[in-house]
């Protein structure tokens, strides 16, 4: 393994790979990505891999719009022919309460103002887009046809292949064990395969980013929560959009292969990094799903698994250099949206590392906001 690098990126998930790709594209040489398992084995390979522009805050709309536009042109940008299976079947978001109806109206206005072509729908109109939805269970809906979902494994591969072809060195099965300091100066990283000295280190370790920050002795106000998901046997295509509901507590999509993948959130999920599954999830998820979409009741569940949401207090990411340790960067706290934000993560982090201005101002996503009482307005559009 090489002994020095200009930038060492910790975490071979989609965030780390996107940062590596963007840096390399901007001309940075000698980049290494360090992954303790195989690429995408963390939250990347465990997530629903949806991408939507329908958000409730301006910043989130802009960030996700950047990502969506990136994925639309991914094939050309990556210069490889890996099909990332970006299916733009839209996101249909159901409102379960009167408050949500009002919120959704405001969201659509905000989105439209930002150039996002979302529409506000009656339950009947939603039913036309998704005939197996029991429209008596929703009060209204919003829809954006450019939203969609991707194949996370292929997207990971597309990013890694693109990064490799730009000269990035990717080390799998290489675990970072310590952050090397020279006094209070960043020196590099220690892995189980040897040390790498690097003046710049990026913490893109997803669910494990706090462990990495701890190694560096810097504060990263995030915690990881288990989030469960399950998949059914495949059937012929019957649902184009990702369906999502916040108060309804569900996201469900049919992937091109034919399986339905769905998840929900649960405040009682453990926060101790475990990746186990629970039987309660199977029951509650099935109950939610069959109530909203009775026709799917005959579908058989073939597998359940879990991943980690790396959470922050305002459910929005941290894009920042650690104030205590110059050269040590955080791209963490994605709160369940790291996959869809990956393209913009790569863009803003690479600009930040190179000291250049990014297309979107993310200075408010700094790490100090949690101390300064500068929390962002809470994003209500999350599952």
């Amino acid at each position, binding site marked *: 393994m090489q002994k020095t690098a200009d930038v060492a990126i910790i975490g071979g998930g989609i965030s780390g790979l996107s940062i590596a790709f963007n840096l390399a594209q901007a001309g940075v040489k000698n980049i290494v990505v360090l992954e303790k398992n*195989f690429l995408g*084995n963390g939250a990347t390979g465990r997530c629903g891999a949806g991408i939507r522009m329908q958000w409730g805050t301006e910043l989130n709309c802009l960030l996700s719009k950047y990502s969506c536009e990136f994925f639309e042109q991914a094939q050309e940008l990556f210069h490889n022919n890996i099909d990332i299976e970006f299916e733009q079947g839209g996101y249909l978001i159901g409102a379960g309460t009167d408050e949500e109806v009002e919120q959704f109206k405001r969201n659509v206005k905000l989105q439209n103002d930002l150039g996002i072509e979302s529409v506000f729908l009656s339950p009947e109109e939603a039913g036309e887009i998704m005939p197996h939805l029991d429209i008596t269970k929703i009060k209204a809906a919003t829809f954006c046809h450019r939203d969609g979902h991707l194949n996370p494994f292929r997207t990971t591969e597309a990013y890694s292949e693109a990064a490799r072809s730009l000269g990035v060195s990717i080390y799998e099965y290489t675990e970072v064990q310590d952050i090397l300091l020279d006094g209070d100066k960043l020196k590099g990283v220690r892995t189980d395969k040897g040390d790498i000295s690097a003046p710049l280190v990026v913490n893109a370790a997803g669910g494990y980013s706090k462990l990495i920050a701890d190694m560096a002795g810097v504060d990263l106000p995030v915690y990881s929560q288990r989030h469960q998901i399950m998949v059914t046997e495949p059937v012929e295509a019957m649902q184009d959009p990702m369906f999502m509901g916040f108060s309804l507590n569900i996201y469900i999509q049919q992937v091109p292969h034919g399986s339905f993948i769905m998840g929900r959130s649960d405040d009682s999920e453990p926060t101790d990094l475990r990746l186990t599954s629970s039987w309660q999830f199977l*029951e509650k998820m*099935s*109950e939610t799903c069959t109530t909203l979409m009775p026709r*799917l009741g005959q*579908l*058989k*569940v*073939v597998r359940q698994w879990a991943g980690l949401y790396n959470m922050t207090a305002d459910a929005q990411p941290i894009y920042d250099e650690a104030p205590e340790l110059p050269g040590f960067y955080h791209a963490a706290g994605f709160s369940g949206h790291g996959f869809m934000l990956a393209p913009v993560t790569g863009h803003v982090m690479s600009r930040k590392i190179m000291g250049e201005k990014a297309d979107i101002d993310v200075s408010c996503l700094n790490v100090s906001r949690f101390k300064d009482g500068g929390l962002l307005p809470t994003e209500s559009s999350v599952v």
Partner: protein
Amino acid sequence: MKKDLLHIKREGLATADDLRGRLPDESTKKEGPYAVIECFEEIPCNPCVVSCRFDAILPFEDINDLPYVDFSKCTGCAVCARVCPGLAIFIVDESMQGEMGTIMLPYEYLPLPEKGEQVMARSRDGSELFPATVVRVLKGGKGKTALVSLEVPKESLQEVRAFSVIEDESPAFHSSETYDPDYESPVVCRCEGVDLNEIRDLIARGYKSVDEIKHRSRAGMGPCQGRSCRQIILNELARDAGVSLDEFEGGSFRPPASPISMDILAKGGEEDAENS
């Protein structure tokens, strides 16, 4: 494995040589029927020795011992032949006057021949020897192993080990038809229809574990949970890496172990709510 067993292990056939020490001497042969036990492999099995009322099978120290007959005690009663799970005991009688003797063979096929019927005597490899007459039939009864005695020339008593009811020529299995297959790759994952070339291609591209290959190819993601394909993928990985299988992770196994419908799962929660 005893060295002298190798030929049997290859062919499944005993030879006259293997019978050495397993047959009575010439004078004992004339005294009455006796058991020939063609059991050459030490396996854990003892019904023959347990069933013999005459202690004519030398006692076992270990259940894996081989049975040897004490011909001075053996009456040829055939109780052992009935119980032997391997159908490896035959009762030979060459005590009668004249050219002919009898051999009693365990038989578990249909139809069961009748006394007086002509059948085809066969050797240990099933090849035809000569037509022979059935002289006695003991039906299987509770144990269902019938015993059938054939009249056989004395010099062939150690050759005949089977018979078949005479029927039309069975068709040849070999065909001369030639076939030019379009050599499709074998299927590894039956659920997802992933073939061996796809797996080998991924391994060649650097994918190193069952889970990586599963994510990329879908092999093992189907409803059977990788029960059919996992072993083959592990073999391929090990072969490529040139290491033994135990150096690989088995990959993840996730619930449910068998597909279950959401309707059924959803009702599980309702019932709990009702009960509480």
